[in-house]
């Protein structure tokens, strides 16, 4: 009697996870396996496809262009993530304190960029920064900076950073806001009774208490930065040559697979990028486990 009940419960469990499992197998595991399989072969215009073992991997490891792209996204992450988190934390605190009027309305406004597809956001910003007619270009000129080219070699990375910060600050703010909301009221009340200045409450009490959320966001954003693709891809449409073929690892993989038609090499690059991301994710888990977030 009892065992058949357990049996039935198990079956129902399978049905609950089935939709996820189906998608996970079809769209994650199978393509992943196929990428690894593909990366072991090489197609040549002359000679066709042949098994080449690890040669695509050694070619990638020795390819300076690939690692240039990796270094570029790391620089990107090192600037973009701290700036964005500071802004996000600042506004999360403002909303958490309840000092802003119409808080709910503005929280929604801040969150809207996240709801805008990255492609649309990048196109919109490209129009704003466009060297010929863009309003920001004209503003820079009116402020006496001369002819500023936001897509030029020196400003293209800062431009991308601005776009990505705009897209993702609201999302990060919402997570931090939610974390701040769960800070126990009595702790804050005790601090207020002790006449602790506001900045101390925020920096010394609230920030340490939401640290797990901050750590999680740092890793999520780092993983996202390593996959940077959409914004550079769109900007290249606005100024040809602004984005080199190896600008980011994902963009280089795309160019290698599509433009150069070296799908096997691109598969090996993708696997290596995936390994880098898995390593970072593992670090994140270790860091959070050490903090005792979960067993």
């Amino acid at each position, binding site marked *: 009697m009892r065992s058949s009940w357990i049996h039935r419960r198990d079956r129902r469990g399978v049905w609950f996870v089935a939709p996820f499992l189906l998608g996970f197998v079809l769209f994650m595991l199978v393509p992943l396996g196929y990428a690894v399989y593909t990366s072991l072969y090489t197609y040549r*215009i*002359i*000679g066709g496809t042949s098994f080449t073992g690890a040669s695509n991997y050694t070619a990638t490891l020795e390819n300076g262009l690939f690692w240039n792209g990796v270094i570029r996204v790391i620089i990107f992450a090192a600037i973009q993530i701290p700036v964005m988190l500071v802004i996000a934390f600042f506004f999360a605190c403002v909303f958490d304190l309840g000092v802003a009027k119409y808080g709910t309305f503005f929280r929604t406004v801040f969150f809207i960029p*996240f709801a805008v597809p*990255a492609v649309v956001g990048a196109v919109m910003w490209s129009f704003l920064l466009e060297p010929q007619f863009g309003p920001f270009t004209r503003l820079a000129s009116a402020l006496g900076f001369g002819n500023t080219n936001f897509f030029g070699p020196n400003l293209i990375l800062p431009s991308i950073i601005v776009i990505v910060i705009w897209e993702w600050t609201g999302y990060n703010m919402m997570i931090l806001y939610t974390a701040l909301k769960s800070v126990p009221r009595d702790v804050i009340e005790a601090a207020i009774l002790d006449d602790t200045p506001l900045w101390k409450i925020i920096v010394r009490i609230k920030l340490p208490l939401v640290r797990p959320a901050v750590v999680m966001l740092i890793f999520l954003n780092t993983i996202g930065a390593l996959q940077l693709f959409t914004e550079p891809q769109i900007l*290249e*449409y*606005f100024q040809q040559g602004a984005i*080199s073929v190896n600008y980011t690892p994902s963009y280089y993989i795309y160019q290698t697979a599509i433009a150069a038609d070296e799908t096997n090499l691109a598969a090996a690059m993708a696997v290596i990028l995936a390994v880098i991301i898995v390593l970072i994710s593992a670090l994140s888990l270790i860091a959070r486990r050490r903090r005792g977030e979960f067993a």
Partner: protein
Amino acid sequence: MNTDRTRTRRRRRTRLAVGGFAAMAAITGLAACSSGSSSSSSSTSPTTSAPATSGTASASAAASASPSSSVTVEAGASCASSSAVKITFWAWVPGLGRAVNEFNATHPGICVTQEDVGAGDPEYVAITNALKAGSGAPDVAEVEYDELPSFEITKSVDNLVPYGANNYKNDFVPWAWQEVSQGSAVYAIPGDAGPMAFYYNSALLAKYNISPPTTWAQFATDAATLHKDDPSAYMTNFAATDLQWIMSLMAQDNAWPFTYTGGSNVTIDWTGAAQMAFAQYWQNMLSAHELNSTTDVSATSFADMDKGIDASWLSSAWGPSYFLPDAKSSLGDWRATALPQWTAGADVAANWGGSSYPVFAQSQHPAQAAEFAEWLNATTASWNITKTAPSLLFPTYVPLLNDPSYKDLNNALSGTSDPNVAFTSAASHISSDEWPPFMTEALNEASTVFAGVQNGKETLQAAFTSFQNVLVSYAKAQGFTVNT
């Protein structure tokens, strides 16, 4: 609103240039493949809108987009219910659907459906994917001359000689026929072309007392004079990242960097004496800041031309139709004459752009597909449609090139002068180019390699040298025997 130039005969023209509509059209294709956004969560949603289509005089059936892709049916939508032999045709030239409808009306046994899957690269990627998959390629497609060898080497296109292609050989300028031929085989029917000319603002040159230079030596002298007279003006713009444009000028200088006639041997020579001399000629003017240095066929370059910053454009025959919508103050001032010559008194022209129409080996009806490709490009009935707006194709078809009324065709840029006289004359002084079978890769790398020349951080000679290295290592990795 003019959306013609979002559909171009040249692949890089899909880049946002004018007004941004190109980019808007392009993102419809991008949204599908850009799932990895700046963060790991999915933030792109599929766009289903059709790219801006030529909503012009095209008599095409409803330009409706299928819900899951950015394919636009331009003509022959009703073929599905027809009992005729069905031919699928991919092309992006605006208004070409008018010719397809005319073909369908006059050829009851064949029904051609034209789809637009994107200009240049997106179309080639779609074809390459279909070829790999073993099905799904079109019967006929628009393929630029430089891209055709990439499909020849993979045996993806049919030899059209068994389908009577050679009957049309004498209808085309010899160089165009040669670009679609390999040995005795003919792999496509030539379509439009882009003979080049010195396209100049006559009022501006007159202002500086410069007459159109007939030699490149004179051109360099004039460039220095003009810029000295007015430091805000330039003789012309040098579009360092436009590889096809640079290669056209190299062809005119007898400095073509490739030798390829099919098979596994290819010569790549960007660093030979002729190539380096070409690079040095232009670099001297670039170093002296006597040339403008911006992306060509763009809003910026057209504005510079219209405002009198650029006095000329080393343009192709299709150039004026791209410039026209952006021209205001310089309307009526533009003239065309032969390109300057490297040897005084010579008459060497060059070609920039243009497409051919191959039949793909996957086709179940190659005879009918070839019949369509032949009709589209080798009949006056078809050219009478495609030479007009919005298509405005420049012919490789000799009867039209020799037609006096075609030479008289004009637009508001040139007042009462006839720029087509220079362009049609150039069409018969061009030598065939040997494109290597990896131009997609070359074009892609070029935008990175030559970017430094455009922003003045690198010389053209240095860019040629690194481009040589990039191409040689790519060709070797692809199994070619490379001569340098």
